[in-house]
């Protein structure tokens, strides 16, 4: 439907999706006024901020024609490490926690990036592997034990909940990440190069852009965001264990796809991803309010994702698969 609307009125994809999201919100609100209670909206924004952050990171990778399946595992591992660090040094304050989360996430992303760039393994293979490895490492560093809220310092837990201008720090971090990503993609050379590298790698290579380096950069950014999200996730839910955010990577990719990011690279923007995340977040948070049993929720959100994906399919029709000469041309 977003696409249909967009084509009818000549509006960009984002406008259609924005309208659809508002429509969804309005429908739920009319049927269940309780949904727009302040507390519920706050929790919706908090939940969605995590999804949006990870989706923005994933978008960088998708733009360069790669895919990162390891974001959720990265968040779980980083979240566990900062939780253990906090349990060991409860007095260290919040800054080291944030620094460790971002640096470690970026380092894990760098592993992915280097394997894609230097060893030239397809990204889906690399991240399929690191997905298992990171997840396994969570178990190894924690010994399979949970880190509970009792072991976390009040500052570690309280920081994300701190209300600033009505919404929590967690939500603000989501907003800041989205704004920074927008500025980065719009106004920096590296940001523009990410699009170029994914849109037409051969042309980009001839224009002097190192496509592999751009892919690596995208993975590092995605990793850094995943690491930060890992801390936020653990602090928000006040528990760290091996299966944190298990399977979340697929929702993250779904948010990107609904937001109009092309899986074949070069197409997409922050605004779309934010709307895609909100769209999924509203559905996820509305279903319990509407009174749908938790066991039906997965089916409904699966159905919505499938439908959204079919409707978005028009986005891909323009880029019809591989070009005949692409392989022969591929620059070194």
């Amino acid at each position: 439907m977003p696409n249909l609307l967009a084509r009818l009125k000549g509006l960009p994809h984002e406008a259609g999706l924005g309208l659809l999201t508002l429509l969804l919100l309005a429908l739920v609100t009319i049927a269940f006024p309780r949904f727009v209670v302040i507390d519920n909206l706050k929790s919706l924004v908090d939940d969605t901020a995590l999804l949006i952050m990870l989706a923005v990171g994933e978008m960088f990778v998708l733009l360069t024609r790669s895919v990162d399946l390891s974001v959720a595992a990265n968040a779980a591992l980083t979240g566990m490490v900062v939780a253990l660090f906090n349990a060991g040094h409860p007095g260290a304050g919040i800054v080291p926690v944030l620094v460790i989360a971002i640096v470690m996430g970026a380092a894990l992303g760098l592993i992915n990036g280097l394997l894609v760039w230097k060893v030239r393994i397809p990204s889906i293979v690399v991240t399929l592997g690191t997905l298992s490895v990171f997840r396994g490492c969570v178990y190894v560093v924690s010994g399979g034990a949970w880190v509970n809220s009792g072991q976390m310092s009040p500052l570690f837990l309280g920081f994300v909940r701190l209300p600033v201008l009505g919404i929590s720090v967690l939500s603000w971090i989501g907003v800041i990440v989205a704004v920074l990503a927008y500025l980065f993609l719009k106004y920096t050379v590296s940001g523009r190069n990410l699009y170029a590298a994914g849109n037409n790698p051969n042309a980009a290579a001839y224009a002097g852009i190192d496509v592999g380096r751009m892919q690596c950069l995208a993975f590092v950014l995605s990793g850094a965001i995943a690491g930060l999200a890992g801390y936020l996730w653990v602090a928000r839910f006040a528990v760290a264990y091996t299966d944190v955010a298990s399977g979340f990577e697929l929702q993250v990719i779904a948010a990107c796809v609904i937001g109009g990011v092309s899986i074949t690279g070069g197409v997409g923007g922050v605004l779309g991803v934010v709307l895609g995340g909100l769209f999924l977040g509203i559905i996820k948070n509305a279903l319990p309010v509407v009174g749908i049993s938790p066991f039906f929720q997965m089916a409904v959100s699966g159905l919505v994702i499938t439908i959204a994906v079919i409707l978005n399919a028009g986005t891909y029709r323009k880029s019809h698969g591989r070009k005949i000469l692409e392989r022969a041309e591929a620059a070194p």
Partner: protein
Amino acid sequence: MSIISSPPVAARPAVRTPFTWRRLLRWEVLLGLVVLGDFLLNCRLSQYFLDPWTLSDASFNFTERAIIALPMALLIIAGEIDISVGSTMAMASVLMGMVAQAGLGTPFVIVTGLVVGLIAGCFNGVLVCFFRVPSIVATIGTLSLFRGIAYALIGDGVLKAYKPDFAYFGQGYVWGPVSFELVLFVVLAVLFAIVLHMTVIGRRIYAIGANPIAARLSGIRVDSYKFWIFALLGMTAGLGSVLLTSRLGSTRPSIATGWELEVITMVILGGISIDGGQGSILGVVLSALLIGCVTFGLSLLNVPGIVLAIVTGCLLIGVVAISSMVGYSGRRRRG
């Protein structure tokens, strides 16, 4: 004069066929050596490993995944991917459980499993071939959809009203320690190898994966092939669901969670290029053996399952990295 006496164009050696063969050979040999090495290592590390019944038990570790890996290999060779197989299995298993609970006999249960799988596969095929959704995106959607249907149907319940004779498929033995699952896997592997490597259909699947546009222009019905491979994969996932459900003797909606990634790992480790157009069934069989050997050997040493995930992940990246670095150039992805 000098032009005529210079070496003719034909002097350029026709490297194509022998080169591909050598490359193929090297990949399977590499895998075979790793399997052999791990087998010997396991024998040394655990005195219980080299026993027909132990090895038979070990085979249960991988046969179900390996059976699904065969059509998955075809699909990836054809340039598509399906990450909904685990969810398809769950949906098939739940519906089989409901059929069994309704008091119908084992044949009905099995047909249900296969048909549900087939429908799920056709659905994916329609999304990809008719609606032109990229396969990874389409199957991310159906991954949640199929699993969601499984949860919607039975919630957190368990279904276990299976008749006793249903247990044969996952627990039965054909001869001595040779299990039904193992025989089925070997038969299917031979069948798939024949179709892929010795028939026109197989050659066309390679052609489609290597260059779908050229394949279409040379008269191959690309969409039709892709659709039927999706359907076949779905039905095989249904078959895998029959085997797994029979082995476990019960159905939960969380059955086979994460199997899609394990199956794809098996296929890629087997030397199938994720870009399509390359690989062999022998490689997939060897990689199934390798994963089976490694995980079983480690679990004999009491290594917990989640740590096995690290080993599998490193194995995948390591083997692919080695092949990439020794110039297995087919693995290079789009510049």
